[in-house]
Every structure is written in C-alpha cells, then in structure tokens.
C-alpha cells in the first residue's frame, strides 16, 4: 500500500524529484547530496 495519508488533497509538501548524475552515480533526489555536489550541479552549463 502506498503510504499516503487520508486527506482531501494529494501532494501537499511532496517535492518534485530531480534525478541527476554526479560522481558517476544517479541520485534519486538532490536532497541527499552534499553541499559541494549541489554547487557543482548548479554551475553546469550545456554543451549543445
């Protein structure tokens, strides 16, 4: 059973998931990244 409480609306406080690759691994959401990794991701520029 999906853990969603009984409520009249759905998704309150549920953030978007943003999957990125850093240091070779994908991470499900950037919440668990350390600060330097977050900074590196923020600084990236596109190449095409």
């Amino acid at each position, binding site marked *: 059973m999906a853990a969603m409480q009984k409520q009249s*609306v759905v998704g309150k406080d549920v953030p978007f998931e943003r999957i990125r690759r850093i240091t070779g691994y994908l991470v499900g959401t950037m919440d668990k*990244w350390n600060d330097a990794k977050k900074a*590196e991701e923020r600084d990236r520029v596109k190449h095409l």
Partner: protein
Amino acid sequence: MIQSVIKRDGRIVAYDQSKIVAAIMKSLEAAGEEDAAEATRVATRATRHLEMNCGEHAPEIEQIQDAVETALMDTGHDAAAKQYILYRANRTRIREANTSLMKTIDEITNVDARISDMKRDNANIDGNTAMGSMLQIGTAGAKAYNAAYLLRPEQAKAHAEGDIHIHDFDFYSLTTTCCQIDIIRLFHGGFSTGHGFLREPNSIGSYAALAAIAIQSNQNDQHGGQSIPNFDYGMAEGVRKTFARHYIKKLTEIIEDTLFTENEAELADSAVNAARQQLDQEPRLDTNAAEFDQLVAQALVQSGKLDSETAKRVVATARRRAYQQTDRDTYQAMEGFVHNLNTMHSRAGAQTPFSSINYGTDTTPEGRMVIRNILLAEDAGLGHGETPIFPIHIFKVKEGINYNEQDPNYDLFKLSMKVSAKRLFPNYVFLDAPFNLQYYVPGRPETEVATMGCRTRVMGNTYDPTRQISYSRGNLSFTSINLPRIALLAQKDEALFYKKLDEMMELVAQQLLDRFEIQASKRVYNYPFLMGQGVWLDSDNLGPADEVREVLKHGTLSIGFIGLAETLTALYGHHHGESDEMQAKGLEIVSHMRAFCDKKSEELKMNFSLLATPAEGLSGRFTRIDQKRFGTIPGVTDREYYTNSFHIPVWYPITAYDKIQKEGPYHSLTNAGHISYVELDGDTANNLEAFESVVRCMHDSGVGYGSINHPVDRDPVCGYVGVIGDVCPRCGRRSGEALSPEKLAELRKKYPSVPTFCGCE
C-alpha cells in the same frame, strides 16, 4: 620535591618516577640504545628539571613530557629523543581522534541529515534512518581507529590535511574495492551465498534473480561497486533454457488441442528427443531452427498421429508461441532484476548495492533478447515510472558488432540511445578506443573492456600478462592526490611542482602498498563469497584458510587525481579548455603521473594504475581546506569544489565537440578508469539524432567511456517524467503544492501513468 601530577582530565595523582623511567626505556630501546641505568639517570635529570620549573606546583602531563624530551636531548640521546617525540605525537593523534570521534557520533545522533553535510557524504545512505545512522557511527569509529593505528604518521598527516584522500577509508583494514563477477562461471554447478546453497538456475527468471543475489552477496564482501561484465552472455544461457522448456510445453499443448486429447507430453518429448539426438542440441531460438523443426515434425508424422501438413503447422505454432512466451519471461526477469537492485539492501540494510551491468556485444538471438528486454525494462522504469538509480547500465560499443548500420546489433545500439535519452543510462564504453582495442580478441568476451562503479577499469595485468582480461578482477584500493594544492605550493615554479608531485606519488604508492599488506594477509574465509565461491580470479585454487596475497595481485592499486583544470590555472594562469598550450601542459602532467604508475608496476610486478578520480566523498573537502589555507584564488579556490579529474570545468562554456576533443586524449592515460560527460538540455537529449552524434563523436575521438547528462525530473504526484521547471507541465502544480482528488481523477483519464494513492479516492 614533586609529590603529585595533574592528569589531562584534571585529576591529581601521586608522582611516580618509575613511569618516566619506563617511557624513557622504551625510547632508548626504539633507538637501539637500551640501558636501564641510563634510563634512570635521564629520568632523574627530568625530575630535577621539573622541580626547578614548577617549584611547589604539581606539574601537568605536558610539562613532564617536555622535561623528558629536554633531558634526552641534553644527555646526547638524540635518536631516542626523536623516538619519544614521535611517540608523543602519535598519542596526541589518538587522543584527538577519540575526542573528535565522540563529537562525530554526537552529530550523527542529534543533527538532521538535511543540516549535516557529513551525513550526506554518501548519497546512497539515508542518514536519517536507524540503520543508516548505525552504519555512519561504525564508519566514524573505523576511520578514527585507522588513522590512529594503521597509517604511518606522514600518511595520516597527508590524509588529515587534504594533500591526499584515501578512499573508502572506513574499510581500510577490512576488504578491497570491487570485482567484475563472471556470472557464467559462478552459476555453473550452482553457488553458495554463505547462508545457503543455490542450485544452477534453469530459467531466465532464476538467472536474473540469482544475478541480483550475486551482486548483493559480493557487496557484503567488498566496499566498492559490484559489476557483471557479461550480462548479455550470462543471461542468454537462461533464455536458452527457458526457450527449450517452452518449446516442448507449447508443442505438447498444441498437439493436445489439435488431437483433442490429453497427456501428449510423451509424444512431444520423444519427437523433440529425436531432433535433439540428430542435431546434438536443445531447441534454440535461431540456431538450426528449420532443421530442428523439420526433424520434430517428421517424428510426429512417424508416430502416426499427425499428417505431414498438420505436424508442420503444429511445430511452427509451437515455436512461435515459445518465442513469445520466452520474450515475455525475459522482459519480466529483467524488470524484476532492475526492481530488485533498487530495493534490496546490503550492509546492515542501509544501502542498496552499487551495481553495474555491461552488455551490448552478444549477437546470438538469446543474447539479443536479453539486451532488448533489459533496455525496455530500464525504459519503463520502476513501479510508478521512477527512473531506476541502479544498476548502472554500460553499453559496449564495437565496430562490426553494433556501431554501424550493417552491424548485427545496430538496432540495439539505437534502442540504447533512446533509453539513455530518457533515463540517463546506459553509459557507453568504447571497445574501439586504441587502449581498449589492444586487448580485444574476437569471440572472447573476457577481453572486452567493461567498467564498474562510477568508472573503474581493470584490464592490463603486469602481475600476470597472460591474464589481461576484465572478468574476475577488480580494484584493490585507490587514493587521490589534491593536485591544485601541489600547484599552489609550487607558486608557479614548474620544476618545484613536479618535484612535489613525485614526492606525493611516492607517499601514495607506499600507502597503497601498506594497505595491500593488510588486505593480502587476509584468508579466504574473510571473503566468503568473493574468494570462497571463486568469484575472484584464481581464488578457486585456494583452500578456506589460505592467504589471498598472490591472487589479489591480479587487482589494481590506483593513484587518482582531482582538479587538473585548477592546477593548470594555479601554475600558468588558465586551464586546458582555454588554450591548446594548456592542453599540452595538462597532458604532460597526466603523462608524468601515468609513467610513475607504469614504472612502479614494472618494479614490483604489481598493477599500479592511474585513475581519473570521480571525487565521491571528496567533492568539496580539498577545496574547503585550501580556501582556508590559501584564501580565495580566482579559477582555483573560488568555488565549493575542484573539477573532476581531467574534466573541463562544468561552468566553462564549451561545445560538446570541443569538450570531447579536449578530454579524449586523457582517457588513454588514465588506465584505472575515466569518464567524460556532455551536458544536454532536455529537448536536445530527446532529439535522438543529436544524442547519437554526441555518442559517435566520443567513439571517434578516443574516448574510452562516456555518457550524456540531461535533467530528468519527475512529479511523484501526477507521475510526469521529463524536465520540470517551476511548474509541472502535466498537472500544473508547483513543488510541494497539493492537487484535489478530482483533478487527479481527471488527469488519470488522460494519462494512465498517474500513480494511485490509497486513502484519498
């Protein structure tokens, strides 16, 4: 007359000169000047010195130690004094480690992971859960012990001060990094996980399940990422068995349906047996399919139950349905495998295993079925369409196999790019790059380069040049050098930079050898799966209590580096993305490091290799320390991180083509592993032509391993996967906003992938 002493914790105890005599004796012994009478004489001198300095006050421990040092030097025992100072420094280190350990455990216990950077060091562990915290406390304890007891003082200093980073330091005394698990060899005859024996699998479903178990079991024996180098070749055996079984089963069913009878299993069996004996093979997807079917049909006609026309039709239908069923089973098996690797846990249940699978070159119909279905399963994602985090998929690109339009697996190469454009995997390893091609022998998949974890590559073998293969080998440990630090210390003096670099590489090589000594003196029973089940090369020749020293030498000791771009900027003013001149300088530095590794390998007949460090757990640490020490230097320490290995800085504007041209040459030098990334925006990634042109450019530019990054966002509420700015393009909500159940129901009519939530509908 000294009566008492103040201890470090403030307690006052009686002064006891015999303790000082004992300490001096140890120092004299260590210096090879053992002499009891002399020890007493020096101790008395130290006591007198204290009496003069402290008067009536009780001395503190530090003052006593100062007095002993002075007394040793005054009496001409310089060597013993040096030993005493080292002993003292070491005690201080251990004491400080203890204090800082308690502080660390306090932080793990009391601070939320969202606030604590330390708790997010390994993004694969949730530092807010019980098992995650337990693992972090264990890690902290092991690190403190290892630094205090296992490192030489100069190594401990270099690690603590950020000259080097010893990776997976918590596992320093325990195990090695990673291994390419040859599942074909592992599965033959079955294997044991250490908790029970598993028979040789007999269907694609159990092949896939056991492959996940093999990765999980090995993850409990090693600290790095686990990998399967031959996923397609290995799983193909399972497909073969499944197809043979379905072929007979479907044949039985269709005969029964045709004759309106039951129990025709015997007839089907005997007909298939006739073909089996004639052709000496099981029913196969493709191999001798027409002959096989013809023989089966003949046998059915001979039974007198079916005429020739019907028999042919029955067999053809059986084959078609067996194919369909096998394909479905294979998809389900691959789907289960991906789900398993994202949900099963190892290491005290706190993290999913770091897993990789390599595939793409098996051109048999069974191998192709595996490749297609693993790609489709990855494409479909997890239960709510989430992008799978594990395993890392690595597609092996090879001319003549899958790279060109006329190649047998070209269709799968195309499919892989469609999937990668959506899911970020697969990555691409290029077997045609000269430094990979040199090992390649057609028809021997173990000579195909495979990668594991974030980029580890193990191929050449100085220890045993007859075994230059990817299977059953791995990295033993690796340590990275803070290259920008050396450049900053050299103060634009190139010769000084190289001198310091050589010193640092020597220090690291010694540290890797010290660590090897610990790893090598372990026994087979210390690695019950890796060695006990013969996963590691030649370990199947060892008994349970044998030392693993010799077989471990098939593995690599790797020296890594981070921040080539910042290094060049610190030394010469700009980096290799900015000029060809700097590119030449960069290649000079990295060639120099590679030559050092090659020389060490030859000298010691071991595998020293050069790693383009991924910076896991290291991202930020070096820079933080260097900012404090050197201040903010533009282009060097002015960001929160140093650039990954030899990469062009992520913030530097450059075209994909130029980036690949610049980074390609470094791949041939970094034989312990490397990867190049190209960043695309979401729309470009979905343009498959653009995507393919980037992959082909990598292939043609000597890149060994590469992948393409693009944003993959998902709204867990409406299930949308793609790029999401501030507002979700499907449901229109912002992050954290709620939707009404009515709105959800309406969306679900349009998009079947909208997740279902219990409790609100």
